[in-house]
């Protein structure tokens, strides 16, 4: 499905031209492996849970086509998110193929699906390109983490984080960011857990604000074309994920190229079936999560 160009979409509610990003290059290609997940976290902005099929499992054949096309466009990195990627039955094969060509990043909850397959994952350290894992550790308090993710899952995720680090992979964590938090203090609170897991104390911590459930419509300011030119420099616009990345999403049996990792619940962000076509299209900043990027520079990327 191509992006629709209705007036309502092109303009804000005040009838001003909506802000947009003109994609510049494809540095990073994300793949959504499917919303099926072993966990059922109430805050999940993807709405993922066991058996969920809103976004379907990507197959190796489908992923290969986009990997090959992305290589033609000069992609520097492949990244994978879910759901839980290791629930996808073809994920390790997909990763194996991607690692033949470029460095890869996998977002994971690091619980049973990965734990049970770690014997198949460890040999991937011998591939031509490095593999990094970003493990979800929502809070530096195991009780708070487990309230949403299930009892014992902080300990399991931390244990797996350590095993991945010792196995020779790069690791980082993702956590939730509260609006009134002292970020440095929160980050520092992870230090004793990192020490116990045997990972570096200065491990990269990616912070995410509240993104709300899929399909939700929280009230946020609208981003106009004027906002994007008056307050955001060309250099800053180039750091928006939709400027340098895309995401592959499979719905209703068909893969589409979406503008970024956070907007797969709005069909206007389906930019077509090929990366070549998608890269030509302006990305209108009309999703409430676009405001997170605008206001806070939220990014799923870790750079190349």
């Amino acid at each position: 499905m191509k992006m629709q160009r209705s007036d309502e979409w092109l303009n804000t509610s005040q009838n001003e031209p909506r802000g947009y990003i003109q994609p510049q290059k494809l540095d990073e290609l994300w793949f959504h492996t499917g919303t099926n997940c072993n966990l059922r976290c109430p805050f999940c902005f993807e709405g993922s849970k066991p058996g969920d099929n809103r976004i379907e499992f990507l197959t190796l054949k489908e992923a290969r086509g986009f990997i090959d096309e992305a290589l033609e466009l000069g992609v520097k990195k492949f990244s994978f998110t879910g759901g839980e990627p290791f629930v996808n039955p073809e994920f390790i094969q997909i990763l194996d193929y991607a690692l033949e060509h470029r460095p890869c990043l996998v977002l994971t909850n690091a619980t049973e699906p990965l734990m049970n397959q770690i014997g198949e994952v460890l040999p991937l350290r011998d591939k031509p390109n490095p593999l990094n894992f970003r493990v979800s550790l929502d809070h530096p308090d195991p009780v708070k983490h487990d309230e949403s993710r299930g009892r014992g899952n902080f300990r399991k995720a931390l244990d797996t984080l350590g095993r991945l680090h010792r196995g020779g992979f790069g690791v980082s964590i993702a956590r939730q960011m509260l609006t009134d938090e002292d970020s440095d203090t929160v980050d520092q609170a992870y230090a004793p857990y990192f020490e116990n897991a045997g990972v570096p104390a200065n491990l990269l911590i990616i912070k995410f604000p509240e993104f709300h459930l899929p399909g939700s419509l929280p009230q946020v300011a609208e981003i106009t074309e004027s906002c994007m030119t008056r307050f955001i420099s060309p250099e800053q616009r180039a750091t928006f994920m939709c400027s340098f990345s895309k995401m592959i999403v499979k719905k209703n049996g068909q893969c589409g190229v979406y503008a970024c990792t956070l907007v797969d619940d709005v069909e206007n962000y389906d930019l077509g079936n090929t990366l070549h076509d998608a890269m030509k299209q302006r990305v209108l900043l009309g999703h409430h999560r676009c405001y997170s990027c605008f206001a806070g520079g939220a990014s799923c990327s870790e750079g190349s």
Partner: protein
Amino acid sequence: MNTLTVLNVIFITDELFELQVERGDVQFEPGACVALFNNGDESRPYSIAAGSEEDILRFLIRRVPNGLVSDWLAQRKPGDLVQASAPFGWFRPGRSVNGERSIFIATGTGIAPFLSYLRSYPLQIPELCLYGVRRLEEGFNLKELQNLYNFRLALSQEEVSSHFHGRVTGLLELIPLATDIHYYLCGLDTMIDETSKWLEDHGVAYTQIHREIFFYEDATL
């Protein structure tokens, strides 16, 4: 999404039952789960207990008081329809690589994936199968399991001659330890944690231990 017709609901106690549904064209490997839905959009994953060549699907379910899905499933009658996801999963008991051996350890309804395996591959039996329940009446398919020469049942809340009295983790010393054995654990989280730690403490490689947690609660099995 699949729509499956209920064939039977067989209670073995007030809270434990086997749900049998028509298979349709569902394809699966032993260890696979299916998310079963209630009459709304709530779902819970249940492991398939049927063999991969059977014409029906079987699920072993514990009725959770006021549970959104299990309670609704418990009230189904033959001919009712149940919505189900496609099979999925990350637990593959007995999936042998290079002829490696297997050991199964289960509590409660966690026996389901192992029953599926045993029914699918009746000639590829595990080295040992340990099963823990509270009372004898709570054991699913015991006659079938007791045909295995290497099956041991642990009853934590009942003394019955010929069965071990205590939690299933009281039988860990029976487990053979070797580098070519894979250890598959399914059921209660505390059993899985304790058994995993015991295995690692006894030199079993982490990559040889496979886990599937079915329920979290105070350890009673």
